[in-house]
């Protein structure tokens, strides 16, 4: 197998060559910065490699000429590499979708909008509208982003997704991110004294505080992912046809039963989350097994019915 590293290195070389050919005498430091080399040594290694290649005959005049003169670099007899390769469809889509996402979210400089338009004009002149990225962005997102950028803590009213309880918290924002159709605020929650993620449409009040904080090096979160822990509770149930989407939507272990239905096992940190789902699914699920969740379900059902008793 050819490794990804080989592919990436080759891909970069094929992009660097045209640029140096076009910018005769380019400074090595500029090339290093532009093409993400760690240092000049790494660049020179690639150039030395190019130096031994060329056209059949492979003598002087056939091989690519590379000169590094003080800080300047020249390439000659390689006109066939004077234009960069076209973008592959995944590369084109990746850049377009990334650009559009930031433009749509109203978080982008003007230059990004013009860059996306220019890119579309060359990769898909007839299909400018063939990619659409919907990023509905309420103003709260900008408020929280700005507060995080200025390292100003915010006091928020938040209705928890698992608990459905409202609480007031002070959060030192780190970043905002868009995932699965929702915006989230990631940061350090002073109230919980831990890192937390808040879904922004469940924040009902924001107060920017007259205070500040430092951000330590933290890993940037861009995805909502359920991370199982040892204290999770598990519940198993069988999905009827109308509930088959559950196996696709939630991170569950699923097995196909002989009669064609699907048996899933779900693990949750809060049994109420599973109980709520089971109650919503109603008679489209059967054979629920899992003591803690079953108890939680019975409790939830009786709490709801109590409110309808009067």
């Amino acid at each position, binding site marked *: 197998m050819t490794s990804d590293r080989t592919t990436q290195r080759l891909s970069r070389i094929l992009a*660097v060559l045209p640029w140096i050919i076009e910018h005769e005498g380019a400074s090595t430091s500029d090339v290093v910065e532009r093409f*993400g080399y760690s240092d000049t040594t790494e660049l020179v290694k690639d150039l030395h490699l190019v130096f031994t290649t060329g056209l059949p005959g492979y003598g002087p005049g056939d091989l690519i000429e590379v000169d590094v003169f003080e800080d300047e670099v020249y390439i000659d007899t*390689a006109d066939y590499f004077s234009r960069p390769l*076209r973008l592959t469809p995944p590369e084109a889509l990746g850049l377009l*979708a990334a650009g559009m996402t930031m433009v749509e979210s109203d978080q982008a400089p003007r230059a990004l909008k013009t860059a996306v338009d*220019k890119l579309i004009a060359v990769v*898909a002149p007839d299909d400018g509208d063939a990619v659409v990225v919907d990023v509905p962005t309420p103003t709260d997102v900008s408020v929280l982003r700005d507060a995080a950028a200025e390292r100003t803590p915010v006091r928020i009213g938040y209705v928890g997704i698992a608990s459905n309880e409202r609480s007031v918290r002070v959060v030192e924002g780190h970043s905002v991110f868009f995932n699965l159709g929702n915006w989230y605020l990631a940061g350090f929650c002073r109230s919980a004294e831990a890192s937390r993620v808040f879904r922004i449409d*469940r924040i009902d009040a924001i107060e920017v505080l007259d205070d500040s904080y430092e951000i330590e090096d933290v890993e940037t979160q861009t995805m909502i992912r359920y991370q199982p822990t040892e204290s999770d509770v598990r519940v198993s149930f069988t999905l009827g046809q109308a509930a088959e989407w559950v196996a696709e939507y939630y991170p569950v272990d699923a097995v196909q039963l002989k009669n064609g239905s699907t048996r899933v096992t779900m693990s949750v940190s809060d049994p109420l989350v599973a109980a709520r789902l089971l109650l919503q699914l109603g008679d489209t699920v059967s054979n629920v097994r899992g003591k803690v969740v079953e108890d939680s379900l019975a409790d939830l059902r009786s709490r709801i019915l109590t409110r309808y008793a009067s």
Partner: protein
Amino acid sequence: MQKVIERILNLLAFLLTVGRPVTADEIRHTVKGYEQPTDVAFRRTFERDKDLLRSLGVPLELHHTDIWEVELGYVVPTSKYAIEDPGLTDEERSALLLAAQAVRFGGQPTELGAIFKLGGASPPANAGNVYADLGHDLDLLGSLYGAVTDRRHATFVYRKRARTVEPYGLVHRRGRWYLAAPETGAPDPVKAFRVDRMTDISIGDNADVFDRPDTFDVSRSISTDLPDDRPRDRAQIRFDSDIAEVAMRQISGAVRVENGSGTVLVDVPITSERATIGWVLSFDDRAVIESPPELRDAFVAYVRGSA
């Protein structure tokens, strides 16, 4: 690694300059790096190299070597090899770099290869603090996108049935990717296929096999609302005060009727009974349906029924 890269640069230089289709045999005897002792070893090396070139986006094509059409040879048409210069400024390249670094696909950061092809970019001074993850595998989405722009058929299994479609466009909406495409032979209606539900996807070899109507609007072809989302009636639901604001935001057209003691009565448009019950249940015991009475009764029966 070094040997592989040297050999492939030699191969590509040869293909870009030779100006005619060349057979594998000619390549073996002409291009430096193919001194493998056996036919088998040469074949293996050459196959790998072809795959690598194609994965980089090199248009490696097979054409007949002469008018007698006896032999096939390899060609890299220079017109298809190079990217047309989009004329980006350095500021625009840096903006693209920042966007590429901020937006991921299924946890994977975007490869910078595309930025390099556009001339590279200096990393922006401030990395920014806005990110997104658009989910899903970019290679797979990219192959569908290629089918859209090249007008190729796509074939996949969807809801247990194999289908062949004419891909018109891709939409990321409500956190999921959809392919807007009519099935072949049935141009109407254009359907929205959820990409994460497709399996066994393959893209046709032939380009330009269909036309997309000029009037087609990709965004509008995929409805913003669920099909069954036309409000028919309204219901009054009493929420505990502290969650009422968040609840009201979830339904457009929700109206506050009155504030009670610790509760808020909200008037909302409703769709199906089933969907409304599911939504009210998402608030546990903190929301109570007050009217219409039939909906209230259906709700109670639903909660009891699943005992």
